[in-house]
């Protein structure tokens, strides 16, 4: 069917033709069309099916509020479900499919649900599907789930890019209709920084859709001139195709810019959408008002539309929604539609006005006053209307207007409730937000002159507050009167009427909810699902409130609205994620030895944000165990080198540096000699161990602290807190130098001769460089370095820090120097094996619930000074006998492999969590000892060395016996350390 495209007028470009398909069928349209207008122009009215009853549905609205005409758009990774046909701009090659129907949109089996409509009332599922019990998950729920949802989404990744950006302005103007343009002009002319945002593809708001006159020209021309002037002002930024979706604390707004949704695919280098965080000093909400449907029988049949939508389709999109129109209204604005359509040559049969004393101008169109449409009669499309006095009028389209609701959403996102106004029969914005005010019909100013004036005045006031001088200069215009008498629900209709279209909520559902006790609007919403669909009740909520009010015997004001929440219109996940997807989800941090490690064939592992070398397989090795065994052996027997640059490093200076450390660590640091390192333990204020590390004294007032990799940032923040908030009187300065220093451990019997070859002018013997020596030296002929004789591996070992830009080169130099000794790079796996062999505690034991004593470090807790955590550490529960403490663990049968995460049970106990004696925190295959061994936290463990326990690893179904032992599995006398 053709002939719905008006011959002239409208904001479409007839010189260009765009091809598109809907459900596989080809159509054409023009630039300036939306998918909805192009479909209507092609005579397609049936665009979707409803949620529950699969009712055939067409377009109701012309913009963001559309609940019915939702389609699946695009293909592959770009497929989107539930796109509103009314807002998607037509582009060449557009492919859309209808959804929630089977086998086809025209013939949808699901429509038989309608037959059971008398059972499928609000909340029926809460009362049924309970017997037999097992049927719910096996049969009922899967059925319900398949029926639920609308469009189907893809599991493929999206090929498009997304961006984020921050915006700043003095005045944010949301909406570019007469109120918004007037606001932007006023503020823009004052010199204030203005951001004018509108979700439409073009600026102008209702002026694009209406026949109005401003300042002697058409509203459209006035808008064009205003936009041109705004575009010429350097202090004004215009953002069409952008929706402000949320208002947040501090006058921060979230907005979504649809940079490339109006094309088939974004051009290379451009994002599809951009997510904006806008910090506005002031904001004016000029979001307009939304027309309401009237609830009567068949008010959902394709061909029944909002009067204003029909006007928009005619005036803006040059599309007649039908050939013969009945207007049904309770206010003046229905007349506008009738007149505009008539002027466009569309036949308007009659205006049915529920008001007896209506006084609006009908331009010769017959008016039936005080009459009511009870039903739209229809097959799949309207064939006529029946009035409540049984008069039948033939028509193919019904334009309805139930009055207007200001779009107050953003004003209510911070919790304020809108206020009912009897005269306008609408909820108006709440007062009280000085930084965000409404203007124009968003503020209930339904006349054009008021919109222009309010826009200018509110903007002038807002920028005036900020110190700009603005003049509210308001053009003259002609007003259309707006008067309304409420009519919510035509009770004597025969057919099904709908309050919430998408969720198929009928006006009978609301009184039922009230009768059953769900009489607060919030309970009724949840029980009936009114307002919970993708349109969030933009059209239906006020009708629902009014119907519920009547059923509950309360006023509309008493019932009030449900809570307005972000998002004004739904926002794609990808837009919030922006560029931080895939491997860019979080930043990757590389150590200064990364290139060297890569050369050595390292396999990297994610440790927090860092990439660390976990092991260095030779080409001949497969798996991880072989290289790790080889690396451990090399470090134990010859010499190994390991990248430990990820340790947190903090330079601590100042007259009170020693005192500061003394308060942070539970052990003493005041007496540490210059040139010496000490192992330190920090507690949290609640007495639990927070972190450990080695800290060295480089000068009386200068320390070099290290932290664990995992806690580096946390410790820095903790120190800042302790200094700034607790002890600002201390003269101490500290700064993270983690990234300044590349740090490597060189360990093994041949560590000393290896390093000796690269250091300048130091003899690395036990006299100048004894165990725990820590000195600033130079290496390789002048590179500043710090050398520490400390050991995590238990071997005679050093840690060497060099400035990071030299890291790779120094590592290579050490490799060269150690070549003759068989130097081998080792990774964090080998490091971990050696620390487990030596019983050194790490992440698995420092797990946020262990005390110093649990870790076997109780004697480090000084009794001579105050330090963080001292008092709380003394509580009964933290010092109780029977706490789980660190022990060693090894399998009884040395061929067995124990695994971390296994629990320990008394040898003859049956499994029970209460009977768990503890669990294994870390394991390693010890090439040194030739079996798997580990550390565990075990109740009363220090008294139980030698006891055989049952290892419970039910989740992997592995069970064995193991022996509790000293955590120090290897070289108990620390001979190798001091060798």
């Amino acid at each position, binding site marked *: 069917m053709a002939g719905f495209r008006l011959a002239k007028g409208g904001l479409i470009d007839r010189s260009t033709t765009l091809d598109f398909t809907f459900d596989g069928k080809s159509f054409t349209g023009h630039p300036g069309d939306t998918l909805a207008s192009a479909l209507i122009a092609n005579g397609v009215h049936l665009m979707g099916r409803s949620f529950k009853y699969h009712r055939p549905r067409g377009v109701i609205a012309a913009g963001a509020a559309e609940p019915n005409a939702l389609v699946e758009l695009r293909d592959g990774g770009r497929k989107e479900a539930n796109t509103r046909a009314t807002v998607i701009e037509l582009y060449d090659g557009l492919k859309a499919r209808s959804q929630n129907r089977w086998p086809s949109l025209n013939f949808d089996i699901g429509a038989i649900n309608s037959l059971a409509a008398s059972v499928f009332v609000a909340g029926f599922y809460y009362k049924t599907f309970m017997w037999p019990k097992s049927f719910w998950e096996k049969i009922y729920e899967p059925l319900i789930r398949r029926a639920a949802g609308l469009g189907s989404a893809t599991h493929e990744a999206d090929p498009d890019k997304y*961006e*984020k*950006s*921050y*915006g*700043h302005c003095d005045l944010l103007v949301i909406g570019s209709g007469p109120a918004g343009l007037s606001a932007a002009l006023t503020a823009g002319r004052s010199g204030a*920084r203005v951001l004018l945002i509108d979700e439409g593809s073009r600026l102008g708001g209702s002026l694009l859709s209406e026949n109005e006159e401003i300042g002697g020209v058409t509203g459209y021309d006035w808008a064009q001139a205003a936009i041109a002037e705004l575009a010429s002002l350097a202090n004004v930024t215009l953002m069409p195709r952008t929706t402000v979706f949320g208002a947040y604390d501090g006058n921060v707004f979230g907005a979504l810019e649809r940079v490339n949704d109006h094309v088939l695919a974004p051009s*290379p*280098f*451009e*994002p599809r959408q951009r997510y904006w*965080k806008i*910090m506005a000093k002031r904001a004016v909400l000029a979001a307009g008002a939304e027309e309401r449907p009237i609830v009567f029988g068949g008010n959902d049949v394709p061909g029944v539309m909002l009067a204003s939508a029909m006007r928009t389709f005619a005036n803006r999109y040059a599309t007649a929604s039908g050939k013969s129109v009945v207007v049904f209204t309770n206010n003046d604005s229905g007349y506008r539609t009738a007149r505009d359509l008539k002027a466009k040559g569309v036949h308007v049969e009659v205006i049915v006005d529920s008001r007896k004393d209506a006084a609006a101008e009908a331009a010769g169109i017959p008016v039936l006053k005080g009459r009511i449409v009870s039903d739209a009669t229809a097959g799949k499309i309207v064939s006529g209307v029946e009035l409540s006095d049984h008069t039948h009028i033939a028509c193919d389209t019904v334009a309805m207007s139930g009055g207007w609701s200001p779009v107050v959403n953003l004003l209510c996102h911070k919790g304020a409730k809108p206020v009912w106004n009897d005269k306008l029969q609408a909820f108006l914005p709440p007062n009280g937000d000085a930084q965000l005010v409404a203007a124009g019909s968003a503020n209930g100013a339904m006349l054009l002159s008021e919109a222009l004036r309010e826009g200018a005045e509110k903007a002038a006031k807002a920028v005036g507050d900020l110190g700009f001088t603005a003049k509210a200069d308001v053009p003259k215009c002609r007003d259309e009167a707006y008067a309304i008498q409420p009519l919510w629900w035509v009770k004597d209709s025969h057919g099904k009427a709908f309050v919430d279209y998408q969720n198929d909520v009928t006006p009978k559902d609301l009184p039922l909810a009230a009768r059953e006790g769900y009489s607060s609007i919030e309970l009724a919403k949840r029980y009936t699902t009114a307002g919970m669909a993708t349109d969030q009740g933009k059209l239906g909520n006020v009708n629902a409130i009014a119907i519920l009010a009547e059923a509950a015997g309360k006023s509309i004001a008493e019932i009030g609205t449900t809570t307005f929440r972000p998002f004004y219109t739904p926002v794609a996940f990808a837009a919030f994620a922006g*560029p*931080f997807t895939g491997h*860019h989800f979080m*930043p*990757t*941090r*590389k*150590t*200064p030895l990364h*290139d060297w490690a890569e050369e050595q064939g390292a396999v990297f592992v994610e440790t927090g944000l*860092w990439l660390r070398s976990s092991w260095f397989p030779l080409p001949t090795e497969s798996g991880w165990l072989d290289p790790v065994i080889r690396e451990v052996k090399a470090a134990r027997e010859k010499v190994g080198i390991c990248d430990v640059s990820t340790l947190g490093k903090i*330079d601590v*200076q*100042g*007259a*009170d540096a020693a005192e500061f450390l003394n308060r942070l660590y539970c052990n003493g640091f005041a007496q540490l000699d210059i040139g010496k390192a000490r192992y330190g333990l920090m507690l949290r204020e609640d007495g639990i161990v927070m972190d450990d590390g080695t800290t060295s004294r480089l000068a009386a007032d*200068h320390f070099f602290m290290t932290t664990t990799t995992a806690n580096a940032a946390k410790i820095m923040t903790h120190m800042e807190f302790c200094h700034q908030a607790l002890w600002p*009187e*201390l*003269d*101490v*300065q500290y*700064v993270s*130098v*983690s*990234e*300044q*220093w590349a740090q490597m451990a060189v360990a093994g019997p041949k560590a000393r001769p290896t390093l000796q*070859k*690269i250091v*300048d002018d130091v003899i690395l013997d036990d006299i100048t460089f004894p165990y725990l020596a820590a000195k600033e030296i130079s*290496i*390789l*002929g002048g*590179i*500043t370095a710090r050398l520490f004789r400390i050991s995590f591996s238990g071997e005679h070992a050093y840690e060497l820090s060099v*400035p*990071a*830009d*030299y890291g*790779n*080169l*120094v590592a*290579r*130099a050490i490799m*060269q*120097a150690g070549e003759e000794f068989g130097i081998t790079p080792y990774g964090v796996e080998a490091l971990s094996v050696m620390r487990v062999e030596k019983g050194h505690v790490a992440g698995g034991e420092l797990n946020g619930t262990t005390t110093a004593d649990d870790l076997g470090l109780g004697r480090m807790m000084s009794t001579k000074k105050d330090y963080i955590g001292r008092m709380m550490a003394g509580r009964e529960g933290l010092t109780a006998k029977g706490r789980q403490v660190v022990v060693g663990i090894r399998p009884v049968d040395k061929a067995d492999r124990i695994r971390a995460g296994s629990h320990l049970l008394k040898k003859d106990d049956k499994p029970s969590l209460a009977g768990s004696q503890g669990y294994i925190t870390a394991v390693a295959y010890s090439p040194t000892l030739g079996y798997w061994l580990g550390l565990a936290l075990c109740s009363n463990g220090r008294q139980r060395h030698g006891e055989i326990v049952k290892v419970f690893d039910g989740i992997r179904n592995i069970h064995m016996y193991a022996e509790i032992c000293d955590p120090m599995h290897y070289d108990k006398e620390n001979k190798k350390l001091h060798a």
Partner: protein
Amino acid sequence: MPDTAIAIKRVSALADVAVQGRFGADKGAPGVTFSVRHPASIVTVIARKDKSEALSKAVEAAYRFPLPGVGESASKSGLAFHWCGVDQYFAIAEGKAEAELYRELKTRFEGLASCSDQSHGRVIIRVVGPKARALLSKGTPIDLHASAFGPGKSAMTQMAHVGVHLIQTGEDAFELSVFRGFSENFWEWLTEQAEEYGYQVL
């Protein structure tokens, strides 16, 4: 003494990453140009307790400009002090080896400030061009409009989940410094965001 043949020189973390050339949209002049400022000498200078005024005087005596105020930079003859926290500054020098700058400041301000060499710890990226501001606004919440920021400003902020020291050096010219370990990732983000404008790496 070393008996090794490896030539020791500073290697930037972005040495293999910041490849010269023109990238992204290729119409018209590039919206921004990037360059890595390396080798740079950077020292964190933190005034000791109650010594900020004395420190400022000492800086002025030595370099003939006072310490910058909160959120500002001050410089002369290739040495700049940038505010980067309470009583805390990045001293950045051109043409002076890193160890040299560190020793100089440490000796000069003995008892007045604590100095830590950061020359290797941070990577400085220069961003210049008409789109520099728009580009940086994709990362920093700081208002970079001329009425709020401008040449001579210095701020600590966060971009793309990474801490950034941001200074403006000219009308359309900025410098960003980030921790070395993040620099490669940050570079990837920054250049990708510049694709729509077209960018040149110098």
